[in-house]
């Protein structure tokens, strides 16, 4: 069995230090070690995006990152994006526009979408469809996901303008 290494992560604002085999996949670190079960596993091969989390400001697929590679980084999962008393605009918007059905892809979708809207605050439908292509959904046919993201973008921009 490979030697364990010392790992430090900041997950949703909390410091976490532990010993782990370097081959441990980040998604398992989160789900099994920390009971952060919002990010899901749909393929373990980087195709589906159900495992998407934010690592050092980038949306990444946690099923294809070793915990050793993540050592020292700052990680945000769906659980860290909002809370029941103050939801993220995207969390509201997905509900409002029926952007989910079984909900299995949803944490990954919303997590990826937060980054997309940071990168492209005012996206066209094409840009949303292209920017979300790394996240698969088997239930919704994407139409309402795209709608949810566009609506969230509009809302965030309006709030931004109002603040300025």
């Amino acid at each position, binding site marked *: *069995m490979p030697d364990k290494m010392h790992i430090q992560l900041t997950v949703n604002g909390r410091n976490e230090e532990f010993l782990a*085999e370097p*081959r*441990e996949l980040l998604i*398992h670190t989160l*789900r*099994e070690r920390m*009971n*952060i*079960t*919002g*990010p*899901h*596993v*749909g*393929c*373990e*091969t980087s*195709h*589906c995006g*159900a495992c998407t989390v934010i690592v050092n400001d980038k949306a990444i697929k946690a099923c294809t990152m070793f915990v050793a590679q993540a050592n020292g980084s700052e990680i945000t*999962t*769906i*659980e860290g994006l*909002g809370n*029941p008393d103050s*939801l993220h605009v995207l*969390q*509201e918007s*997905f*509900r*409002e526009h*029926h952007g*989910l*059905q*079984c*909900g*299995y*892809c*949803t*944490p990954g979708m*919303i997590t990826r979408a937060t980054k997309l809207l940071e990168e492209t605050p005012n996206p066209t439908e094409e840009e*949303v*469809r*292209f920017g*979300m*292509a*790394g*996240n*698969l*959904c*088997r*239930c*919704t*046919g*994407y*139409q*309402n*996901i*795209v709608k949810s993201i566009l609506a969230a973008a509009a809302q965030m921009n309006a709030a931004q303008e109002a603040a300025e």
Partner: protein
Amino acid sequence: MKDDIQTREDRVSNLKGLGSSRKRVEDARFTQGKGNYVDDIKMPGMLHGDFVRSPHAHARVKSINIEQAMALDGVVAVLTAKDLEPLNLHWMPTLAGDKQMVLADGKVLFQGQEVAFVVARDRYVAADAVELVEVEYEELPVLVNPFAALESEVVLREDLEAGADGAHGPRKHHNHIFLWEEGDKVATEQVLDNAEVVAEETVYYHRTHPCPLETCGTVASMDKVNGKLTLYGTFQAPHVVRTVASILSGIEEHNIRVVSPDIGGGFGNKVGVYPGYVCAIVASIVTGAPVKWVEDRMENLMATAFARDYWMKGRISATREGKITGLHCHVTADHGAFDACADPTKYPAGFFHICTGSYDIPVAYVGVDGVYTNKAPGGVAYRCSFRVTEAAYFIERMIEVLAIELDMDAAELRRINFIKKEQFPYQSALGWEYDSGNYHTAWDKALEAVQYNHLRKEQAERVEAFKKGETRKLLGIGLTFFTEIVGAGPVKNCDILGMGMFDSCEIRIHPTGSAIARLGTISQGQGHATTFAQILATEIGLPADSITVEEGDTDTAPYGLGTYGSRSTPVAGAATALAGRKIRAKAQMIAAYLLEVHDDDVEFDVDRFVVKGAPERFKTMKEIAFAAYNQAIPGVEPGLEAVSYYDPPNMTYPFGAYICVMEIDVDTGTTEIRQFYALDDCGTRINPMVIEGQVHGGLTEAFAIAMGQEIAYDELGNCKTGTLMDFFIPTSWETPHYTTDHTETPSPHHPIGAKGVGESPNVGGVPAFSNAVHDAFRPFGLRHANMPHDHWRVWKIANDLGLHV
């Protein structure tokens, strides 16, 4: 409460009942990552199971050596067929009357078959140990083609007695499973032999897979102290799993609790019973610890629940004017290594005999031969009632081929053959009684919406331009008019392992006027907690927001047959409405007592009972609920509860008209959906928002199936499509935009007139996409080309037609 300030409309809209686009109550937890799926479940001391699987499609298992695996730190057990045999669990019965190996018993019959089950401390150790199990195989000849299998001397199922009948009658050959026939063969052949026009075609509906985003899995926990087995799992039919688990294990049914938590999509994949479930249960019994088994994506695609794989040879006849006179169909059905079809009907080809579609066809015959091959077992209804999507694809292709034969417009050919409104209830030549329909109206609305005549004109111009060399793009107009058959089903047609396909609902009204309803079904994303509360809100006059809907725990929910085949609304939805009506009947007695009038002198109005002719005198349902618990009413038991078990008198028959407009690049074979119009008629509409979502999702699965998704094997039986790299799942980028529309023709026999919708878009969508490809090439002589229409195959059509010179 006499201060009635609200208008009647306000009171109706407060309920958020039938017809309201109520937002989903499930979404709060899903959007915050607080869903509870099987793989999220953790129990103290839980172990992890993982399979050693066969690399060969057909081989004898000479030996299995588990020594090295057992020596690995953290490995608790390695189970093989030898360990299961004393428990009589090395084989298990399938839902189709056959049996299936749980772990390889002497041989393997498909690539990916379960050979041994490793149980270890965590999933990494389990995976390491799988590599350490040594299995010696002797390869045997592989049969992947069902036609070849029926000719071959190679015996796949050596466990079956030669010459003995199968579950569905005589077997013609050692690799043959059944022949099933329906309709009048002699009369049909006579009509076809003497017809003015006959069109013939063999239509292959390729093998594919439901591939929900969450794979299958379970956590089994045998508590040896109190003798109870708890089974969490991705089960579309938890009650059936309990019964099957009890029969297999000998544990009494009251000592088994099956729980389906949140399910990450099902689409038929999660109806069947898989070896992983059995092994996890046995492993928990053996080790005394909870055991989790969750398959990975590759295992999911290779070993559980394929769909389709139907070779349909059809002949359809008509008069020269286009009136269809007869339909003949013979199917060669590839069932893989075991006949493990998750078939809820009494017929081995499910509802395939709905293949006369939406047309008034006087005489018809179908015959289906089931065949064993060295492919994965399963055979599930991937987002359809079992074998309906095959039937719909078959007839909608045959109509197009007949239109070519008649040199007729395919929209017109459909119109002149539709079952007419006044013919309902309509008795089909193959034995079904269609409940209601208004096909002509729906068709006209659809053609009008897409401006069909303009499209045809544009297409003709495009063909001209193409011939002149002005463009390399063709335009296809894909038409489909489908009739679904859902809501399994009347106990007379449908059962699973002998259990009739009723469903159930139990309601308890709480004293303060809120309620809980429990159903025998289980949502996999359809939003039952939202929509069933709406049915109930309208029936009992309490707001949907005050009604909790619970499903999936066999200890608390009434027995039901689960969710698939669009059966939840037609069956459990009906049970819900009827249970609600029982509540209302009792509430009426209570109201009459409180208002000091005779029972017959009060009537229900939205959320209350009012005294007839004196609407200012009323009792709200909330008041009645309270009274039910705190007043002694002579002759009336305290409390307000009801339960209803519903055996539907008939299936329901949703229908729809889909039109797909497709641009095809002749030189690259790439396709682009320019427009997709979907009109659905699912009877009474419970929640339009949810219906639209179901249609989007079903159409996208149809798009995938028609345009690229398949489970493919090479001649050695290697599955070539075991990852999402090779198995096509469309992303947001390729997926088309859809326009939805509807007509509303209620089912006359359903308590609220609803028919079910989840599967219609898959049933109707596949032929719409496929017909668009065919239609584009029709002017150049294409009759039929098999799906999936990926870019290479479309390019190949163009090439074969000589369009590349």
